[in-house]
Structure formats: C-alpha cells, structure tokens
C-alpha cells in the first residue's frame, strides 16, 4: 500500500508539469452539472484530452450512422423521387457525360442546379461508386435505384464529406476561440460536440440526404481565416462555400462588410479582390471557354423564374402569405424586386453598425459571429426563393455564439430547437419522425434542463418557455388529429407561424446585441 501511495505522489508531481493546462480545465464551466459534462469529465485532464476528441468524433459518426438507418427524401416515390435521387442522379450524369453537357442534361428530371463544386464532388463520388458497383450509376438505367447497398454508399459518402470538412473545421475553430476567449478545454469540447450534433444538420444531411456539411465546413474554415486575419485565404475558402451551394451567399454580404472594415490599405483590397476573381475563375475554368456555358450555370443556379418561396418555409413571405396572397396581387418580377429591397433594408442597419464598430475595436470576433448570424438569418427571412433547409445556414453561426459566450446556451439551443422544429413537416414526409424525436431529445438532454430553462429575464422566460409549450402542443395536435379536409396545409402553416415568430424574435435580438456590442 505504501508503495502505491508513493507512486500516486510521484504521478502528482509529474503531472504538475502539465499544470498550466489543467488550471484552465478546472476553471468553472457553466456545463458543470449537465449530463454532457458528466459523461465527458473522465477526459478532463490535459493528458487525456486526445481521447476526448476521438470520443467526440466517433460518437458523431455513430449518431449519423444510426440516424441513417431511417428513411430518406423521396424513398419509393416514383417518378421523381427526392433529394436523395437528385444527388445520385448528378453523380450518374457527371461521370457519364462530357462536362459541357452537365448543366444541360434532362432538365425536366433532376437537372444539375448547384454550382460547379457540387458537380465535381458528385463526379468523384460517382467514380468511386461505379468502381464498386457500376449499376448504381449507369446512365438512365439507374434512375430511382433503391436498395440497402446504394443507400449505405451514399450515406457513407455524406459522412466522409462531413468528416473531412465540417467536423475538423468546428474542432479547429473551437480550439482557436478557446485560446482567444480563455475557454477551458472541457468547454471547447462540449461546445464542439453541441455544434456538431445539432439535430437539424444531422437529420438533413444523414436522414433526408444532402451535403450541406461541405458548404458549412468551407464557411467555418473561411471564418477561421478571418479570425486569423488572413483575408486572402479566407476568400478562397468562401469561394469554395458559395461554389458548393449557392445558399452560401447568405453569408456573402457580411464577409464583404467584415473584410472591408478590416483592410488597412488599398493594396490589401486589391489582393482580396484578385483572389476572389481568380479562385472563382479556377472553379469555373472547365466552363469558361464558352460564355453560353457560364450563363447556363448562372441560369440554373439562380432560378429567378421560380416562385417567391418553395413549399412552405418559415420566413416572412411565406408566413405573411397566409394573410396577403402576394402571388395573386403582384407580378413575379415585382415580387423578386420586393424581396431584394426588403432584404437589403433588413441587413443595412446591422451592417452599418458592425462596420463602424469593427473598425474601432481590437476584438472583432464577437462582431464577426453576430454579423454572420444576423445577415444570414435576414436572408432566410426576407430573400427570394428560400428553402426550409436553408435555416441551417443561420443556425451554424448562431450556435457558434457559444464560443463567444457559453452562457447564451439557453437562447442558442432554443433557436436550434425551433430550427429543427421548422423542418418537421419535411422530416415527417421522409419517414424520419422517430429520428427527429430521438435526436432532439439527445441534444437537449445532454445540455440539461437547468441550462435550457435558466431564468434570464421575464421576457426571455416568456419567449422560451412559451415557444417550447407551443412546440409540444403542436406535436400533440399533429399526432392526435389530421388537419381539416378544407385546409390540408393547416398544421404546416401552424408550424411555420410558430417558427417564423421565433426566428423573427431571434433576429431582432441579434440586431439588439449588435447594437449593444462593446467597442
């Protein structure tokens, strides 16, 4: 016994060399009593933290693999199927057709309507898939193919894409912010875990089926470089982001404002400008020789001839459409102009404020994250042709606010919950109800009731608890009864109204926080 005691002491003095690491990890964390802390605290000490990262990444994989057992968009619904088939179809067409036909092929089916990086990504995955089983991607013959092997292959590729980009990006950002804001390692790990495992992204990418994590990964890497003040590299990452999915443009106004506010010389501006143009040219290079091709991409990627919004989405236009039937009283062209003007008006005040504040302050990071959250949410709420899935774009920077101030956890998780809730009608169609409830339960349980319901102020208590109550009521109504035959969309409209109210309040709060931001 005496010997082991000596050993214990010995190890104590050994580990004291790591003490400067440990000090920060033992500092008070607001997650102290949450289940997520309880589960991870075994890895709290500095020498053990490598294991915590493995655990984090592998639990993320596990969650995605388990969610992936469920249904996907358009399963067994010929003739058009859904997003799963769209993605698979792009792999099929890119590997079989010359590049000049990519944006022209059978537009009536699932014609390619994402920017070139998605096309290249599809090409690579299609090549790998064809190597394993050519039937999965044989031209035309493979349309609507279903089966556990192709499903698993696609899911696996979505997972790999996320593992390569999004997850390392979040971990790197958390690490970087941890240093800047003196966050303990434990908090960094917990916040990364909460960011990575938010129900909406997992359900959309690995349930419904899409590759949003690639775009979001590019975005976070751009943000990391902005924090590092390397604007040239940041713009390369950002070009990657918008060239993977055009929805990345929701971030574009603010990245422009931010870089502009930080530039010290005209030369820098030229440097960034040239980089943007050059990298965009590189992405487009296979198409650039023929102006018709470039125009076709533009036309496919920005379908201005489509409606004000698609399906039902919890933004300003779709929600108020219940009261004012825009499409009956205004011409489509005017509508798109209206949307443009509203969007510009909605982002103008916060960007002016941020520009002034960012020029003055030394600590630009809070402004950076608030700016991305506020701008992208404004785009979601007011711009033209918004999809319900686009809510993922404002939710990522909103969640990253935790890295600036972990005590915002109640508000951040609240908006994430509402965001997932706004996707419920879509997920229900995809047969992902079980997965929806489980993943929502998981993330909220990990944080714990004490943090989610902590009291902040009367108004916030009312907002947060009120909207949780309405979510619960909605699910009870949805479970127990069908909507009346005259209004088959009534439940969906109820859903988007609740969601819109919450998004709008959150957006106002973001504006307020930006206004209050200390210089």
């Amino acid at each position: 016994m005496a010997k082991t005691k000596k050993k214990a002491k010995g190890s104590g003095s050994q580990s004291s060399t790591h003490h400067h690491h440990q000090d920060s990890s033992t500092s008070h964390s607001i997650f102290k009593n949450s289940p997520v802390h309880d589960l991870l605290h075994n890895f709290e000490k500095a020498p053990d933290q490598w294991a915590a990262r493995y655990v984090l990444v592998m639990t993320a994989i596990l969650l995605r693999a388990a969610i992936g057992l469920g249904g996907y968009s358009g399963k067994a619904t010929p003739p058009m199927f859904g997003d799963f088939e769209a993605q698979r179809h792009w792999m099929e067409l890119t590997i079989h057709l010359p590049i000049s036909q990519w944006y022209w092929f059978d537009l009536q089916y699932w014609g390619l309507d994402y920017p070139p990086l998605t096309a290249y990504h599809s090409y690579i995955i299609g090549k790998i898939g064809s190597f394993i089983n050519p039937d999965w991607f044989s031209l035309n013959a493979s349309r609507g193919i279903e089966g556990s092997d192709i499903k698993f292959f696609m899911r696996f590729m979505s997972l790999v894409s996320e593992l390569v980009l999004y997850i390392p990006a979040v971990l790197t950002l958390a690490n970087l912010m941890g240093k800047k804001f003196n966050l303990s390692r434990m908090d960094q790990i917990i916040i990364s875990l909460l960011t990575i495992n938010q129900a909406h992204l997992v359900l959309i990418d690995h349930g419904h089926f899409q590759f949003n994590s690639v775009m979001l990964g590019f975005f976070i890497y751009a943000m990391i470089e902005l924090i590092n003040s390397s604007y040239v590299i940041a713009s390369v990452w950002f070009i990657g982001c918008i060239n993977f999915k055009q929805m990345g443009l929701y971030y574009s106004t603010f990245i422009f404002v931010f870089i502009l506010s930080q530039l010290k010389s005209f030369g820098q501006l030229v440097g960034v400008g040239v980089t943007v143009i050059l990298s965009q040219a590189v992405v487009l290079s296979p198409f650039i020789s023929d102006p018709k091709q470039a125009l076709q991409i533009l036309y496919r990627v920005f379908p201005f001839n489509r409606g004000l919004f698609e399906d039902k989405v919890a933004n300003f236009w779709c929600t108020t459409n219940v009261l004012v039937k825009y499409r009956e009283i205004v011409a489509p062209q005017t509508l798109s102009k209206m949307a443009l003007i509203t969007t510009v008006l909605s982002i103008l005040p916060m960007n002016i404020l941020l520009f002034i504040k960012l020029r003055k302050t030394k600590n630009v990071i809070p402004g950076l994250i608030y700016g991305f959250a506020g701008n992208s949410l404004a785009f979601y709420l007011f711009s033209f042709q918004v999809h319900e899935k686009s809510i993922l774009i404002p939710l990522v920077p909103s969640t990253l606010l935790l890295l600036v101030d972990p005590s915002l956890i109640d508000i951040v998780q609240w908006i994430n919950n509402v965001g997932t809730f706004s996707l419920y009608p879509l997920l229900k169609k995809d047969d992902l109800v079980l997965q929806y409830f489980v993943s929502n339960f998981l993330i909220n349980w990990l944080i714990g009731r004490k943090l989610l319901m902590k009291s902040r102020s009367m108004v916030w208590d009312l907002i947060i608890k009120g909207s949780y109550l309405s979510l619960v009521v909605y699910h009870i109504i949805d479970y127990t009864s069908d909507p009346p035959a005259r209004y088959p969309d009534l439940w969906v409209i109820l859903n988007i109204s609740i969601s819109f109210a919450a998004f709008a309040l959150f957006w106002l709060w973001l504006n307020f926080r930006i206004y209050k931001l200390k210089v």
Partner: protein
Amino acid sequence: MSAPANNEKTKVAVSSKVTTEAPNYAVRVKKYSLFNIWVISLTLKVLLVIGYHSTDFDVHRNWLAITNKLPVSEWYLEKTSQWTLDYPPFFAYFEWILSQFIPKFVRDDGCLDVVEVGNYGMPTVYFQRLTVIVSEIVLFLSLQWYMDSSKTHDSSRRSFVAAASLSLSPGILIIDHIHFQYNGLLYGFLVLAIVSAKLEKYLMCGFWFALLLCFKHIYLYLAPAVFIYLLRAYCLNLEFNSKKSALNNILGLVKWGNLLTLGSVVIAVFVVAFGPFVYYNEIPDVLSRLFPFSRGLTHAYWAPNVWAIYSFFDRLLIQVYNRIPLSQFPLQKIFQFDPKLLKDSKLVNSSTRGIVGDIEFLILPTITPKLTFLLTLFYQIMALIPLFLQPNFRRFVGALTLCGYSSFLFGWHVHEKAILIVIFPMTFLVSQDKRLLGPFNLLVTCGYVSLFPLIFTCNEWLVKVVFTLLWYIIFHFNFRKVVRLPKKLEGQSGIIVDRVINLYILGLIPMMTITTLMDIFEHKFEILKKLEFLKLMIYSVYCGIGIISSWNGFSWLYFLDEAIWDIEA
C-alpha cells in the same frame, strides 16, 4: 500516463492540504451513477429499433404467441413453427407476462399468431424491441448495485469503470439491440448473483443463480463454480476444532442449517419453474427441447474456439493432401482416414459438414460430444480446486471466468454469442491487477469482433464497428487509469508480452478491412463469392487464437499468482 495511480486521489489530497500519510479521502466515497450512461445508450438503442433484426426476432415472437395462445401443457409440445420453445420455463413465463402487455394494434399486426413463419410489421417490431430495452433495466440496476457496494473511493471508481463497460458492452448492443435477444435481462440476473456473492449474501446468490438457470440453461456451464463456492463458503466448515471429539468434528464439517436453507431456496425456484411440467408429466419433452444433441460440433459460422482451429487444420491438411502428392502417404499413415471421402466435392466444400452428414472432419479424427464434455469438465474442475481451497469472492469470479472459458473453448455446438459468458465475470476482476489487463483486452476485442459476422447488413456495419471501437478506446483508457499495480514490478518480459498483445489487437483492423473489402467487391469478382467461407474462417481463426491466448494468460495468473486472489493482502 506512466503511473495509472488514482489522479482523483491526488487531487483530493492536495486540495485538502494533506501532504503527509494521513489522507481523509476514504471517508468521502463519491457516488457514481449509471443513469446518464443508460440514457445516452437508450437513444442509440431506440434508433436501432427500425434496423436489421435476425430470425431470432421471429423466434421470440413465436414464443410470445405460443405462451399467450396455448395452455401451459402445450408450450413445449407445440411445433407449428420450426422455432419451438427451447428455453427453460421461466423464460416462457417471461414471454407470457410480456404477451399480456401487447396492445390491440400490435395483436392485429400478427404478433400473436401461431404460424409457421411470422407475418408481422412495424408495430410488432416496436413492441418487441421495447421489451428488450425495458427488460435490460435489470442489468443497469444490478450494475448500479454493484457500484454502490464499494466501500472506498478507489474501489468505487474501479467498479464504476467495470460497470460502465458492461452496461455499454458492444456484445449486448449487437446481440440484443440489433440481432435480437434478451441478454441484458439474463446477464442482469448473473450480475445480481455475483454482487450477492461479493456481499456474502449466499442465499441471494443461490436464488439469483437458480433463477437464471431457469431462464436460460446455457448458464449451467457456470454452475460448477457457483456450486463449489456456495458449498465451501456457506455450507462447509473445514476448521478442525481439537476440543471437540472426532465425530463431532466430522458432523460439524457441514453447516446443516445453512445447507438446508440454501437447498430449499434453490429447490423452491426449480419447483416453481418446472412444477407445472412435472404435473403434466412433460419433463422428458421439456428436456429434449432444452438439450438437443442432434446438432453438429460447430455452428454455421465457427465460434472462435478450439474447434475452429481444429477445423481449420483439417481444411489445411485437405489442401496439403490434394496438392502435395508426397504428403499423401505420411498423412494417411498418421491419421488413418478414408481417402475416398476427399473425392466427394459436396462434402469437401460444405461449411459445416455436421449439417450435411455425420462426418465433420475428413483427415483429423472425429470429435464426439463425450470428448468435448470431458474436456470442458476437466478444465472446469481444474479451476474449481483453487476455489475450494480459497473460497473468497475473487477466486469465485476467477473460477466463473474459467468455467466460462472452458465451456466456450471446448463445448459442443458453441455459439459465438456465448463469449459474453466469459467477458461478464472477467470484467469484475480486471481492475484488481494490471497484469489481468492483457488477457482481458485480448478477450474483449477478439470476442466482440467475432460477433461482427452476426450482423451482415451494410447499414448496420458502421454502427457495430464504430461502437465497438469507441467502446474499446474509452475502456482501454479508463481501465488503465484505475487498475491496481502489482506489488512487484514487472520485468522486461511483461512489457514485451503487452506489446505483442497490443499488436495482435491492432491486427484486427487489417483483418476486418480485408474481409470488408472482400464483401464490397463480391459481386465484382466472381472468385470472391466462392471464398465466402474463407471470410468467416479468417474471423474465427484470428479471434480464436486471441481468445485461446487470453485463456492461457488468465489461467497462468489464476494458478500461479497468489497475490491477485488474496483479498486480505
């Protein structure tokens, strides 16, 4: 990293400014709880509900139907489906109880139809999966009880790691929540028996073990250890009292009162279980269901045990015989087999010849059930001798482990799933001494990986592989942190052995990668289809060698190292 001594301990000691030899941490025992682990694993299990399940699902559905629809007297006679009831009566009662809770929409789904092949939909799946999840709470409660029984801070931490590793066992996840069985419940009872033994509640130990036997008779393999332990620790008194007469001493050898109470408890359990069938005069029918000796030595996929290696050598010799003409004469001389059989391609190519015919081995001598039984018994008795001489809790758990090992390694028609019978008891021991970690790591990795072929659907592939890997990283790491160091430091040889073990475990990764690649490219290259059996053989031979080595390592420590087993020291 170098000294896995308790970090918590140093922290507490430092914070309370106790720098001398007067630590006060033993007073405050931190309470650990499995609740959060239960919740988080629950979410995964619920997500797996809709995933792949094996024919065992229909087996249990059929039992629900039989017990619900038929009178008790027909339970063990009914044979509409090939999945006849072949578990002992308590399991049948358990199914009957479950069947009372089936709501109407599940009944309408075909859950309770006594038919040849079940015709059921998602409601039945949800219901039955839910019963597994709910009944598994027994395992969590029993492990929580085990943790609560620790008296010091250190032992509390050690028991927490052990309990957490069992409650998150990939074996339970794969077998119960993907494949479909009720091992969580059954191993919960085993843990209850083990914890009772730890607390010296011998009657309870006997009760829980008897109950377990009446749920599933595979645990008979552990019965010798339980029997000897309870006999020696509770019913015998071997201390010679020189003041009394020789006759009194001989009579005093047996604690008659204890023997009688324990005996009546155990018999009472068995009477409750088998009583109705005695009444209906159906005991022979029940027994013939429970012990079907008509099956072959090895299961369709060889469990990674001695017979897998034996079969592998038989196949190897067939190839040698067919390809090297020079070898034919000596092989023929040594093994004296019938060379005509080797010409029969149907026999040579079948995976388990026991199903095709009576001959399982073409060159090596045939193995009879009697031989396997004798081998199992021999190794079990060897393990029981030290237990009889030193009837303490650690010896008991060690003997349980070795009984499990010998039944798994030498038994007749062993399933790969039976590896849990070794892993469960051994987990209670492993944190007692660092030298046990090597055999333990080999056992769990090879044991759990050998379960992979059970789940062959591609969508569950990631779940089983990542979960097992994650489990191993977490617990490899945590066991190393809490394990006790041996008093005398290991020599160079110990370190080398550890390295070899770790290398062997790492070798599982290329092994799995190769077999998975063979799976993936199966329909691309015709030849891979023919090698279907090779894949399974790689699994069982690689894992088999690992498990046999871990048995050797554990036996070595069990028989030759006194320090681990002496509780007082």
